[in-house]
């Protein structure tokens, strides 16, 4: 009986590891194939998609960069950084106001700030396009910046509010006894104490902004302000495309976020769990 039980356990362990490893292959193979394809010639790619390149063409990355990817990266980086910074700032102010100052109708204002969490951006799409066309914000970097910022405030403020609610009351009182103004209390005490949640939300906002597609596609029409996702999709749909060049662009788009995830894994887990659960 014991031998049988041990055998059963053995089989189970083999089954578990087979499954987990098979999934590792399913996840990693397409990604490695993307890198592999980025190093080939067009002919090699179509002749045998599985093969390794005869000689890795690192040149493809340079070509991709020159054929527009460099511009897309510039747009995406500036948009991501600026939108994240502004979102963090506006949300932190709001969370501070909602949690550390007694404002009349606090519940109403809380709902007003957080309700946006539940809205799909598509729902406001048509009026936004009309509005942006009328305001001259259509097809502009500034327009995208506004949209990216506005639609991330509820989520960011939501997580920050939850965090600031847990900071001890005595902190503000001590600051106030020492004569610190509200402004000083925010900048010198509450914001530094909230750094873990600021980093968490910033990491998630960077991921979201870098990968955003709907607004970037609908609110731009071609040259100048294309972000990476939109630019790559455009490159792909053009006739006579050198596909390895697009693959190189895809690697350039994917790599920063994969690295960000591995470097900031702890923050990802905290932010994602908080965003869904509480």
């Amino acid at each position: 009986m014991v031998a049988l039980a041990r055998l059963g356990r053995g089989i189970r362990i083999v089954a578990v590891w087979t499954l987990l490893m098979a999934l590792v292959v399913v996840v990693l193979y397409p990604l490695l194939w993307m890198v592999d394809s980025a190093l080939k010639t067009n002919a090699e790619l179509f002749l045998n998609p599985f093969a390794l390149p005869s000689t890795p063409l690192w040149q493809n990355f340079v070509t991709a960069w020159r054929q527009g990817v460099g511009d897309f990266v510039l747009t995406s980086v500036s948009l991501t950084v600026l939108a994240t910074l502004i979102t963090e700032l506006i949300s932190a102010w709001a969370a501070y106001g909602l949690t550390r100052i007694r404002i009349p109708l606090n519940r109403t204002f809380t709902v007003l700030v957080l309700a946006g969490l539940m809205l799909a951006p598509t729902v406001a799409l048509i009026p936004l396009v009309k509005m942006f066309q009328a305001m001259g914000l259509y097809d502009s970097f500034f327009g995208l910046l506004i949209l990216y910022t506005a639609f991330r405030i509820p989520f960011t403020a939501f997580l920050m509010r939850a965090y600031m609610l847990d900071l001890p009351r005595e902190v503000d009182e001590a600051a106030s006894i020492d004569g610190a103004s509200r402004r000083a209390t925010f900048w010198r005490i509450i914001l530094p104490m909230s750094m873990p949640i600021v980093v968490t939300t910033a990491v998630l906002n960077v991921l979201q902004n870098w990968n955003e597609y709907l607004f970037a596609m609908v609110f731009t029409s071609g040259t100048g302000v294309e972000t990476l996702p939109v630019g790559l999709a455009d490159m792909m749909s053009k006739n006579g495309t050198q596909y390895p060049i697009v693959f190189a662009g895809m690697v350039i788009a994917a790599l920063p976020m994969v690295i960000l995830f591995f470097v900031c894994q702890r923050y990802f887990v905290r932010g994602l769990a908080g965003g869904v659960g509480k």
Partner: protein
Amino acid sequence: MTTLQAPPAPARAAVPRVGAAAPTRRARSVTWSGLVWLAPALAVLAVFVYWPLLQNVFFSLLKWNIYSGEQTFVGLDNYVALAADPVFWHALTNNVWYAVISIVFQVFGALVLAAIVESVRSERWRKAFRAIYFIPSAISLTVAGLLFYFIYQPQSGLLNVLLQGVGLGQFSQAWLGHESTAVFAVIAMSQWQGFGYSVLLFSVALQRIPLEYYEAAELDGVGPVRRFFSVSLPLVREMTGLMMIVTVAGAFQVFNEVMVMTSGGPDNASQVLSTWLYHAGFVTDDFGSAAAIGVAIFVITLALAVAQLAYSRRRRVEW
């Protein structure tokens, strides 16, 4: 950008005033001046989120003349037309498929998988599996979509070449080019992209269960499968419910991957609500009916949001 340089100035002076009212009272007293801190968020949200949302409802009652841009009030005509539009219902059905398949793989599949990952004894491997499975969620749906567009290519795509390689060549086909397979090929990609995210979240939930529960069960001779059903499952029920609501809400908002991989084709076979909205708004320039589709999405996501809120309010499992 001016927002960056204009921190909200609280009404009170920054310099402490000697002999002013007892400072501790400040923290307690109710004051409108605190609104300054909320003003930027409220202003941005009001103008760019809530106002367009309201406008959208109004837009859905209008008819636009494409050439003159003239608008006429048509009441519920757009909704009546939508109800009679077979593509709208087909798109809605595709969203439902998205939701159902995602629940199977990204909720229940991910939960089982998370339990299996957490059962691995080596901490290092557990971490490695969780991280590797998450990688596709870090790359954008657009890049993942483009990647799978290639994997599904009829002639030299990875999938068909693979099928031929293992002698299943008769199943190879233009996955995105056939009406019957297109939307499911997109959904399959989406599962690949998103399952690691759910596994990560379920792992966190499972880690919160005290080990003693498992040890007690193990001492009682309960096997791992029953431990999953009798210990893990009841204790992550809240997370499972939330994940279900979040997943379904996501399924009714899906846009990127469909747009990138098929644009709703072939012959509208893979349209979903948001791509059909895009089509109405920017391909046929029928803003009224696009707005009506927007209202439909709004109603569905609002219902799910209310469900989520009600669910979160319920007492958590205590231990």
